[in-house]
């Protein structure tokens, strides 16, 4: 709890400095709002449910997009990791596509799907899927041949070998891919929502700009950071700790 306390003090200090800078009136109030007015905006936003709706819409998109990415990414990673022909062909393509910032898929998505949910979910998938694929792929490639031998010697073959040996052995690397995939999915979603009318959190951010409402902009940014952190702490930190305990790796 000591670390927790230190963190609380740090953030309290940060807010205090913010308040002090605000009181110096260096910038106009609509460019640099006080902490309290941001808090007020947050409270109002949740009371009149705009923020709740924004969060719900964004979460729905990311759940669908990330969910599809997880399934597709892991499958693709397993395939190119185990099938030499696919490795040499699709494998190099995946590497290339991963370097492409996902938002560059937006124009294409808009033409294909029109201005709707599908387009934005497509962008999320394109952001996340290749990180997950590559994490899975390198995990599969890194499975020590000895474990495969041991599994086969004890009667594992075909899908059993996949489920009981290859996937568990590759899991640490798969989790790294999943975590990276999550952060890319989240960034892609925000970028996509900023760029067209879409109701999610990114749209609320844009609306704040259009209304010259800096406290809304900051309030929504805070929400975005908090969601990112919560998912990281609740899901991935747990997943990693569990994994490290099993494997006896050091908690990095």
């Amino acid at each position: 709890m000591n670390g927790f306390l230190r963190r609380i003090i740090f953030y309290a200090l940060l807010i205090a400095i913010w308040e002090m800078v605000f009181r110096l009136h260096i910038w106009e109030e609509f460019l640099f709002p006080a902490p309290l007015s941001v808090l007020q905006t947050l409270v109002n936003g949740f009371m009149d449910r705009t923020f709740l709706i924004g969060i719900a819409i964004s979460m729905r998109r990311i759940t669908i997009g990330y969910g599809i990415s997880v399934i597709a990414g892991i499958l693709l990673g397993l395939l190119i990791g185990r099938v030499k022909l696919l490795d040499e062909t699709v494998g190099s393509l995946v590497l290339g596509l991963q370097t492409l910032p996902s938002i560059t898929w937006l124009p294409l998505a808009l033409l294909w799907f029109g201005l709707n949910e599908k387009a934005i979910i497509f962008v999320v998938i394109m952001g996340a899927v290749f990180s997950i694929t590559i994490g899975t792929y390198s995990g599969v490639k890194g499975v020590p041949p000895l474990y495969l031998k041991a599994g086969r010697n004890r009667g594992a073959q075909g899908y059993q070998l996949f489920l009981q040996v290859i996937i568990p052995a590759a899991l640490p690397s798969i989790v790294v891919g999943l975590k990276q995939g999550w952060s890319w999915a989240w960034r892609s979603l925000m970028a996509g929502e900023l760029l067209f009318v879409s109701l999610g959190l990114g749209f609320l951010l844009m609306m704040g700009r259009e209304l010259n409402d800096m406290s809304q902009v900051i309030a929504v940014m805070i929400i975005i950071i908090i969601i990112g952190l919560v998912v990281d702490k609740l899901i991935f930190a747990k997943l990693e700790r569990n994994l490290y305990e099993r494997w006896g790796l050091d908690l990095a």
Partner: protein
Amino acid sequence: MYLKRELPKLQLKNVSKTFHTKGVELKVLEDIDLGVEEGEFLCLVGPSGCGKSTLLNIIAGLEEPDSGEIFSNGHKVTGPGTDRVLIFQELALFPWLTVIKNVEFGLKMLKIDRKTREGLALEYLKMVHLSKFKDAYVYQLSGGMKQRVALARALAMDPEILLMDEPFVALDAQTGDLLRDELQHIWKETRKTIIFVTHNVREAVCLGDRVLVFSARPGRIKKELRVEYPRPRHIEDPWLTLQRHLPEYIQYVLVQLKKLPYILNQDS
């Protein structure tokens, strides 16, 4: 009448193996001809790098020989099978599973239900004195404990042919003694066919019905030694040292002497 000679449990015919790494050829095994009888305890000794582990891998169906054939129960070996279970020199325990799940692994692959395989796994863990550690993960075990888990994991599968690659090297003398006794006991009870690789000639002579001595790479069978001394044998038995140095007739006398109590017992 025509009497069919019983086939050996395991038969190797002219098995050779060469590894190619970056254009360098490494001839590891040359023309290994070998028959192992059902229920035989065969020990292999030989210098490091002469291909003992490679040979076990080939028998297990995990490596392919360049030439030659292997027959298990008269059937040609073309891949791995649970009739031939190997205890790897590197043990190859799965770090993502607890000790007991490691032991259960092969049973799970054999589609044995959860209750039964848990019971079996516990039984074998008890045998290697690791019941307390059943829920530990592999990294929490010492080297010797890992070897005992590997032994339990192989025995739990109850294979007809057990291939053991230096399974007792990291054990202290006491535990080694204990497990050698236990292994002889299991072998006697179940009549398994065992091929046991070791660097320790004493251990080989203690355990084996027959000891094969390999030459340095490329591995060939250089010498064959039958050990007729009655069991149970113990690695501290003084005759183990004598076995290698005494002329055969003295060995014979020793063997008869050791048998004497049994013979007398049978008469009365």
